[in-house]
Structures are given as C-alpha cells and as structure tokens.
C-alpha cells in the first residue's frame, strides 16, 4: 500500500516552495524524481489531477486540498471541489 506516498507528496509540496514550483513547471518529470514509490493508478491519477480517484483511494483530504490551493496538476478550487464531490456521489450510488 503506497497511498502514504501521495500523502507525503501533498504535504511536501505544501511546505516546500521550490518543490512546488518544480512540480508546477514539469509535473511528470518531478513525479518521476520524487523519492517515494507510487502505484500506476496513483501516478496516473496525480498527473491527471484526478483527485476523485485519489479521494476514494484514501488520500487524506486535508493534505490533498493543497494540490488545488497551489494549482498543481491542473487543479483549481472549483475543479477540485467538483471532482471530490462527484467521486463521493458515485460511491453512494
């Protein structure tokens, strides 16, 4: 289980401005360099800004929201909100 790696990434980009700016410039390259392991699903979801999938995989929302606050992986607050809410709605159906 590597979801903790996504949690680490979310906290690291919130705390480390240089890392955050590097991810903003080139997310794919930086994700490949990031010193933790991700599953293929996690990697694909991160690069697609698919926070709905990450939310269902158990990424901590408090941490994950920093991706949207900093505009990482193409996210805005509105996009983030819509995807997280849709994923929760889909889970209930």
């Amino acid at each position, binding site marked *: 289980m590597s979801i903790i790696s996504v949690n680490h990434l979310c906290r690291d980009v919130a705390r480390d401005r240089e890392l955050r700016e590097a991810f903003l410039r080139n997310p794919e390259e930086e994700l490949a360099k990031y010193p933790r392991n991700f599953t293929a699903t996690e990697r694909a979801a991160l690069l697609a800004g698919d926070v709905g999938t990450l939310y269902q995989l158990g990424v901590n929302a*408090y941490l994950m929201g920093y991706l949207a606050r900093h505009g990482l992986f193409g996210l805005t*607050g509105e996009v983030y909100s819509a995807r997280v*809410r849709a994923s929760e709605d889909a889970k209930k159906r």
Partner: protein
Amino acid sequence: MASIVGAIGVPHNPNFPELVARQGLACDTAQSYQRATAEFEILRPDAVLIFTTDHLNTFFFENLPIIAIGVDDEFAGPNDEVPTVSHRKVPSIAAFARHLHASTVAAGFDLSSVQEFEVDHSVIVPLHFLSPAFSVPVIPIFISTHIAPRPTSRRCFAVGETIRAAVQSWPEPLRVVVIGSGSFSFDVHGHLSPPGRLVGVPDPAWVHRVGQHLQRNAICDLINEATPEQFSRAGNVSGEILNWIAMLGTIEGQKLSWFKPELEFGNSYAVWR
C-alpha cells in the same frame, strides 16, 4: 497543590491572525478573542494545558498517536503556514508534564509522550491571541480527532477527569488554565465543503446544538451525541469537539461565564471560571 482555575474553549483557524490584522479590532473574531483574552488574564494562569489536534504537521501516518502529551521545557511553532505569525519558542514545564503523563498512564490511559517537538496552528493561534507574549508555560495534549478511529467522546472526557486529578496531585501551587482548541462543524478540502469551495460549515445545526448543551451544562448529552456518525455529517475536522470535551472533563465547580457562537465559521468561544 496545583489547581485548575478555569477553562477556555476557542477555535484555531490558521487565517484568524491575518483576518484580524486585515479587518481590525472591530471585527467579530477580534472581539471574540479580545473577550477570551480578558478572561484569560483575569484567571492569572501560571501554566496552560491545551487539548488540541495536530493537522499532520507534528505527527504523520508513520506514527499517529491517539493521545500524546508534550514533555519538554520548551517547544516551537507554528510548523505550518499561519499568515502574519512568525515561528517562535513557547515555554513549557517538563517536570509537570512528566507528572501528568505518569499519572494518566498509572490511571489506565495509554498516553504517548513526545519530546523536542513543534506544534502547528492549533496551538499557536489560540496562544497568539490569549497569551501574545508567549510567556506563560504551555503543555499540549494532542488528541487525534481528524482521522478515524478517533478516541470516543466518553474516553476524552475521562482523560480530562484524570488530568484534573493529576494536576491536583502536583505539589507546587500552580494556577492552571485549560484550553480546548477547535471547531464543531468544519470541512477542509473534503466532499462536505460547498460546491466550488475548499472549506465550509456542513452542519450549522450541530454547532447550535452543541452551544445549547454547553449553556445548559448538559455534558452527558453532548458526550452521547458526539459520535463518529455525527462527525461524518459535520465535516472532516469536526472531531475537534473532542478537545472541548476533554477540557470539560477537567472542570470541577467552575461555571460557564461566557459563551459566544460563531456560526459562520462553525465554532464557538466559551469560558468557565
């Protein structure tokens, strides 16, 4: 002998210092915190115990204690972003904290201890307003209220009762004020925040009901209703009410002297003395 002379419940929104700096002392948050600070000063504390919740800044998933006490002669913070508030040292009393730790473990509560630690906004924001010189020693007691499984409300109240007994068995005549830090209904980056928003207050009715229980001193009702199901409706940080419930367990004889709800932010301010 040390004694608990009062208790203060407050929120800890990390944006409040910047909000007050921007909006001025006439804004609601400033007014509420000014009143709480006046009460804090009347109580003349020699030491503060603060029940609080770390936001994955001091602890992380590799090591996430359900309840932990800070045992050191000082700590630092904030270790997260609190606009307009600088990183600083906060005095503490390691010997007193060690006594509280040993006493609670002896009473059957398996608290972890933490040394050489930093704290996040959940400790620094209340102190920024209540004790702006950061001169009163502070002992933080961290309760994991955000991430399931949380301790039960009954367990948190019982921890508070045990901490009260431990304070009273400390031989030095310390005047101790207990702080409960946190909100009643708040969602941060989760699916309960309003559409298009990253934060929100999903269950203002719960905030109102908590206020009613506090004002009626109906603590048993509050404990019975502060359940995981209620937290699942009130937002992903709403478990912070457990910090207030632990604080309520420390009270013996003090009466609610001031209560002010702040429904916009899903929280309240209250003083018992």
